[in-house]
Each structure stands twice: as C-alpha cells, then as structure tokens.
C-alpha cells in the first residue's frame, strides 16, 4: 500500500514547484521533493525541543548609529546609504566581501 504523502511536504514542495518548476526537469523536481522531505524531518527534530520564552536567537543585534565608535554589524552602511554617500560612504557590501 503506498504511503500517504505528508501534507506539509506536499505544501512546501508545491511552493518550490510553483516558483521554479518552469526551470526544472521532472528528475530534478523528484530530487527536490526528497530534499524537502529531509528538511521537514529536520524541522520535526527542531520543533520537538521545548524552549522557554527567554531562549533568544543566538544572534547579536545592536541599534544603529552612524557615529558609533566601536564597529559592530549594525555599523555597516546599507546599500541605499552607500548610494547616497557615493564614494565617501563605507565600503559597499560587495567591497567588504559580505555579499557576493
């Protein structure tokens, strides 16, 4: 008897197929479906761990000021700001190697 497809996998796969299906072959879509199954499996393991309200994302955030004396991630100028500042601005994200 064939296994009932996991509705979450079906929905998430449909999202990918709808968005990119026109550039993918049937074989590639089959492989993507298997990958989505793996991702849903991984998500299930993550969801199974209970966390408290105080368990924050382990990622630093700091409020931004352009004249901050100590460098932090928030001190990186945005692309829009770079455009406004022209060559006087902070290095572009490309120049910093932060983004491809």
């Amino acid at each position, binding site marked *: 008897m064939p296994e009932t497809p996991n509705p979450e996998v079906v929905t*998430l*796969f449909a*999202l*990918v197929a709808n*968005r*990119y299906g026109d*550039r*993918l072959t049937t074989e*590639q879509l089959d*492989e*993507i479906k298997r*990958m*989505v199954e*793996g*991702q849903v499996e*991984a*998500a299930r*393991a*993550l*969801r*199974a*761990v209970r*966390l408290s309200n105080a*368990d*924050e*994302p*382990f*990622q630093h955030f700091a409020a931004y000021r352009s004249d901050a004396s100590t*460098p*932090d*991630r928030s*001190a*990186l100028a945005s692309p829009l700001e770079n455009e406004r500042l022209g060559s006087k601005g902070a*290095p572009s994200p490309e*120049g*910093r*190697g*932060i*983004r*491809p």
Partner: protein
Amino acid sequence: MSADLLFKPVRELGELVRTRQLSPVTLTELCLDRLERLGPKYNAVVTITRARALSQARRAEGEITAGRYRGALHGIPYGAKDLLATAGTPTTWGAAPYREQRFDFDATVIGKLEDAGAVLCAKLAMIELAGGMGYRQPTASFTGPCINPWDTGVWTGGSSSGSGAAVAAGLVPFAIGSETWGSILSPAGYCGLAGLRPTYGRVSRHGAMALCWTLDKLGPLALTADDCGLVLEAIAGADSADPTASERPYRYEVTDRGGFRFGVIPDVTDGCEEAVVANFRRSLDELAKIGTVEEVTLPDLPYEQITRTILQVEAVGAFEDLIESGGIAELTAPEDRFTPYAREAILAQDYLKAVRLRGVMAREIDRVISRFDALVAPGRINEAPRLGQEFRSAIRATAKDVMGAVGNGAGLPAVCVSNGVGARGLPTSLQFMGRAWEENRVLDAARAYQSLTDWHTRHPKLD
C-alpha cells in the same frame, strides 16, 4: 634546490630563512616552478601570482639582509583558497559564473600575511561556492576535481581542495582555507595534513566570499599543528571591516606540557570505516600517555539539524541573486544547479528555532567541554573518496558528524592531524576540538600527539 625542502615545516624553513641559509627568492622560485609544473596534475591551482610573489620575496630578502626580520613567516611562500579577494588577480570562488570576477583590494587575511612577510604564490582551487549549494561529488568546481597527491584516483576532500593538494604535494609550505562545516578538516584529513579551524571570530572574514555569515571561518593547512599556530598568530585579530572579528588578543605559545584531559563521545566512531576506528583506538592509546581519556556524553539535542538548517538558509540568502536569476544553472555540479531551490521551503519559524537552539547548544557544549582540554574524534569517517564517486556528508544528512555540527554550530576551534593509514593506504585523521578561544590548548594537544607519532613526517610519493 631540492623539493625535499618543501616538505620541511614552516618553522624549520623560517629558521633557514632567518639565518640566511635559504633565500626567500630561491624558495619562492622553487614553489612557483612546482605550482606551474605539478599544479595542473592535481587541479590544485586557479591562478599563479608569479609577479606578486617574486616582488614580495625580493622585498623579504632585502629586509632580512638589512636585519629587519619580521618573524617565522617572513619570506615563506603560501597559497590562498580562491575565495579570498586579492587585488590584481581574479577571485573565482571556484565557480564558472564568477571566473572573471576581480576585486580591487586584498582580503584582510591576505594583508595580514603580507605584513608578516609571507609570499603569496597562488590562488588555489576550491569547490564551487565553498560547497554551499549541496554538492555530492568531487567534480564540483570549474577547475575540475582536485586530485589527491597520495593517490591520483582519489579526491582531496573539500571545499578547500586546492589548499589540501598544494601543501600535500609540496607546492607551498602552507595554505589558507575556509570552513563553514568541514571544509578545512576534510582536505587536511584526506591529504594527511594538519588543519586548524579557528574559533568563529578569531580571524577576519573581510574580503572572503560569504557563504554563511555566522558559520564561515578562515584557517591554515600545513604539515604540522605547530605550523598552524604560527600562521594563526599572523592572521588573527580585530578588523573594523569585519565586526565579528574579535578584539581578544591571540598569541601562539608553545608549551611543553602534559597532563591533558581528553573527552570522547561514546558513539563518535559510528559509521566510520573499520581502519578509521582501529586508528582512532590506537590514537587514544597514544593520548593516554600524555593525559587522561574519558567518555563524555553530550546532552540530547538535534545538533546536526540545528547547524544544517542554519547553513542551508544562510547559503541561499548569501546567493539569493544567483539562485533567483537562475544563474546557478551555470554551476559545474549538476546537483548544485537545483539543490538550493529546495531550501527555499525551509520555514522561517524552523530557521528561527534552529538559531534559538544554537544558544542552548553553545551553552551546553561549553559546560561539557570546559572540563577538558579537548574532545577527540576521528577527523574523517573514511579514507578519501574515489574520484567520480558520491561521498557521504552530514550537510546532506547522508552521514553523521556530531563533532562537526557542534564545532561549527557553536564556532569552536579544532585541529586535525594525520593518525595513520587506512585499508587503501591513504591517510586517516584525528581531531581535537576545544573550548571557544582555546586554540592554544588544542594546538598543544595536537603537537604533543605529533611528538609521539611520525605520521606527519610521511609524504606522498609524487611521480
């Protein structure tokens, strides 16, 4: 000039240079000759930086002659993984869509090595986009599969593939690689080298291709753990261009200590090849001569799922433009042309859960590892895979790698050294993973292990 010279550790070469028994120009010419002659045989090189190398070598020679010696790397040639920006030469990220890419500045690591007097001889081959698109086999680079100097029928490992091949083949005395999950330890382990993954934030990533902003680390591959320490001292430090680069000072200190405390996760050899398990057990016997070895159980957490989820989401974020535009169709590995699309189906809530669990993981592992100098484990689960063969990987969930998941997810340092040969006569490896910012302790341990064994003195026979 004998090629045997290039199988001497950096520390010995540095002493020969310092005492003017060896000319940096002569040493550099030897490397350039071998990179040109042997580099193509191993698909190890993308660009040879001959003019820059000779200019740096002549400058080093002049300074040393004038009594201005800068330190152990002064006049020592090296190669850099081709994801580090270098002014004046292409920086291809190993990927066809970027083969003409150029930057007008040097990555901080390149600049720091220049300040130390090291000589950049080559940009080295790598897996396209540092393997972040989900590659499954060695032919995932526009320069072809990187060939292992120990056996031309097998792979070097990746994604710092050329860095592994170039040091193992004696093309350069050391190389810089990068690791997001496994990309330094893999080529070091498969090529019989020492490879150091520093603590996240120890080394500036400025000018390095971003694959995963919170996972990428830069570090050395060399013949010995001691050499890795020498290189780390030169490249570590704060950098205003990379806010994650820590201001914690780092100085490599060689201590001749014993009384180490080693921890071993009970099921850490699950899924390893038989010879890897046997060599690991032998290594534990060696380690028992310099310290205690005890089993340690990690708290039950989905380590691999945490790190994998973060990696997958950050990697598609970093290459959003390439993926959205369909530019990934130009990548070399067929699987890299579609795998990233699947990752767009990871839900934000699940990603956020992984980032929250990462904090739990970091705190739990610190609590466990703080009782030890290092957790030890096989560096790789197997000998180097054959060319043309799919390999198993924890990133794709086809292999287990709790040490890699914890180490990279929590940003912990690890050093990998050769600890024997397997059934096919290829190197196997041993890794020492330490507490955050404790590179010197893992290097102490690895150096002590290497003082008891001679695996690091064995080199491939090159035709």
